[in-house]
């Protein structure tokens, strides 16, 4: 039963149950207080009646009381009060009962007894007093007279229960309908997304309720997923494109070889060129694998204390001859020690990529400045500034994307993954790569913080598990 399993129905049933329990908790003490009050009041009245009759007896003796009782019984307000005067042997002298009831205790006092008043047994409240001279006086009242009141109380309670149940059920149905409408909307959107159209978003409004908040969160997730998928699509396109060029060259080279069958010396030269083409493809793959390795965040488990000033000094030392060859110079400004927890290999590669780029694009006689500065709260700022053509403002965001190759890079070697690798390494270390204008040139800046974001370590276990299932790549 779908309806019974609906969360709205469960909710409504639960609320009705709770409402009934609350009602019972409210009615029970009320009922008790009411009963006590009524009983006490009634007993008081009976007792004061008995008192009055006792006074009549004292004042006027048995005949006076007999007359008094007869008068009252004669006024036809019988049924209202039970009155009975009996002598010491329990023979009735006056009153509206034919005989002294056996159910009345012999000891004087106030009791509730069963009496037959002509319409079956009923509960009667009685006050039994003994009068001087051994006389017995019984004053009583049929409690059934209060039954209609009690009945009304129960009717009212039943009515309340009925109203509560009906309203609760209607409320449940309404909530369920509202919930189903919104869930239906969500389900339709999700189905559309499952079909492959990621542009759909869950319906939201300004109510700010839980479902709306949830929808907004899911929409945020969808935006992120769409961007990622878009990025992956772009990357696959770029990979395909970037690999096609060397593969096309390789193919035509080999085909030409088999068609023209040139001299063996020329053949060897062509084969060497073909190997170089393959190496280019392998290089692109290696760079991609490296990026994937960094992106997975697994390296973070192997973080150690790294002095970025030392890393920078080594990198400057490494690239200096290449810069000198092009007539430029690499200058280093650093505040040592600039220690951060990180992956020394990745950090060196990232810095190396930045310097390599700077060396490539700096014109003759230019200067490349590498700076490692300590920032606030243990953060470390690394900048690599060159005096090359720079990257136009509009293209800077794109420059970090995989396989981006700006106009300035035409004719220079590289696979267009350098800056994305730097960005990935920076993000692995809780930082970010930003590109600014150096007037002229490009200023690449990474700020690394001590607190690196946490990643799910579970990915590590699965990678180890899958180790021997990798399909190896052979030459």
């Amino acid at each position, binding site marked *: 039963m779908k309806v019974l399993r609906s969360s709205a129905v469960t909710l409504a049933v639960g609320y009705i149950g709770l409402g009934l329990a609350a009602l019972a908790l409210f009615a029970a003490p009320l009922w008790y207080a009411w009963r006590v009050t009524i009983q006490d009041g009634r007993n008081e009245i009976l007792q004061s009646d008995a008192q009055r009759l006792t006074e009549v007896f004292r004042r006027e003796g048995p005949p006076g009381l007999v007359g008094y009782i007869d008068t009252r019984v004669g006024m036809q307000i019988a049924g209202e009060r039970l009155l009975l005067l009996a002598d010491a042997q329990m023979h009735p002298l006056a009153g509206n009962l034919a005989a002294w009831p056996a159910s009345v205790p012999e000891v004087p006092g106030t009791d509730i007894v069963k009496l037959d008043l002509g319409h079956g047994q009923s509960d009667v409240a009685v006050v039994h007093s003994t009068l001087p001279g051994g006389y017995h006086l019984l004053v009583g009242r049929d409690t059934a007279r209060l039954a209609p009141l009690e009945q009304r109380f129960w009717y009212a309670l039943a009515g309340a229960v009925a109203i509560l149940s009906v309203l609760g059920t209607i409320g449940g149905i309404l909530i369920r309908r509202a919930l189903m409408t919104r869930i239906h909307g969500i389900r339709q959107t999700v189905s559309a997304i499952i079909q492959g159209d990621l542009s759909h978003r869950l319906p939201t409004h300004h109510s700010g309720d839980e479902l709306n908040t949830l929808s907004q969160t899911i929409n945020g997730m969808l935006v992120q997923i769409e961007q990622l998928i878009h990025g992956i699509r772009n990357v696959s396109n770029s990979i395909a494109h970037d690999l096609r060029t060397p593969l096309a060259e390789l193919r035509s080279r080999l085909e030409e070889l088999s068609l023209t069958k040139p001299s063996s010396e020329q053949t060897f030269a062509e084969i*060497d060129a073909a*190997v170089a083409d393959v*190496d280019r493809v*392998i*290089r692109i793959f*290696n*760079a991609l*694998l*490296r990026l994937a*390795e960094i992106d997975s965040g*697994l*390296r973070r488990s*192997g973080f150690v204390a790294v002095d970025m000033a030392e890393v920078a000094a*080594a990198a400057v*030392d*490494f*690239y200096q*001859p*290449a810069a000198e*060859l092009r007539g430029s110079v690499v200058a280093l400004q650093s505040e040592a020690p600039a220690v951060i927890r990180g*992956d020394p*290999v990745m950090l*060196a*590669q990232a810095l*190396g*990529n930045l310097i*390599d780029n700077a060396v*490539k694009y700096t014109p003759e006689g230019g200067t490349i400045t590498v700076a490692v500065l300590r920032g606030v709260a243990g953060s470390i700022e690394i900048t690599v500034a060159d005096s090359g053509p720079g990257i136009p403002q509009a293209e800077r965001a794109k420059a970090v994307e995989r396989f981006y190759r700006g106009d300035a890079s035409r004719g220079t*070697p*590289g*696979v267009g993954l*350098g800056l994305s690798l730097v960005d990935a390494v920076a993000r692995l270390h809780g930082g970010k790569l930003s590109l600014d204008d150096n007037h002229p040139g490009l200023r690449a800046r990474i700020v690394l913080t001590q607190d690196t974001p946490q990643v799910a370590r579970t990915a590590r276990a699965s990678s180890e598990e899958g*180790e*021997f299932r*990798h399909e*190896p*790549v*052979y*030459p």
Partner: protein
Amino acid sequence: MKVLLVEDNERVTQFVIKGLQEAGHTVDHAPNGRDGMFLAASEPYDVIIMDRMLPGEIDGLAIIEALRKSGKRTPILILSALSEVDERIRGLRAGGDDYLTKPFAFGELLARIDALTRRAQGEGAQTRLEVADLRVDLLTRKVTRGDRNLVLQPREFKLLEYLMRHADQVVTRTMLLENVWDYHFDPQTNVVDVHISKLRQKIDADFERPLLRTVRNAGYTLTSHD
């Protein structure tokens, strides 16, 4: 030199055996972990080339660990398609002496097993290195060629020291990156070549006989032979 190749891929096997034989080495081949384990434990080899992922129950790392536990000190070069830094560290921790990722150039493999066997023969606590008339004193850090003093930058000295220690062997760019600069990544550009040409300027330019030579498609070699 006697080499054991533990590798399951036929193309790679063929390619490596042929290349090694041409270089004058004898090669035994095991196509799976069990045979590899048996041969490595029973026969004396100068060097073992070990694939990591092998058919059967025993993988390359398990063989290496078992060999090291039984006291075998044969140099082992791990050959693997697993290129991550962590995988490399795991391989070396298991007892491998060097780690080469597939796909590889044969020149790289040959240069590395040459370097491994040379190392196994023991470089000892040398204080002086000599190739023809080029001398390096590791204690005073003095470099001379003939009767001339050569002034080298610290990094150039380290580069020369590595080349001298591997004199008459081919040293690849990757080996230089890893051993001289401790860079375990591809710097994308030919920076190593620039360093070599700077060093060459200092040790060879003014002399009749060049010692530091480029080996096509492989790397460099420092040698007095022609």
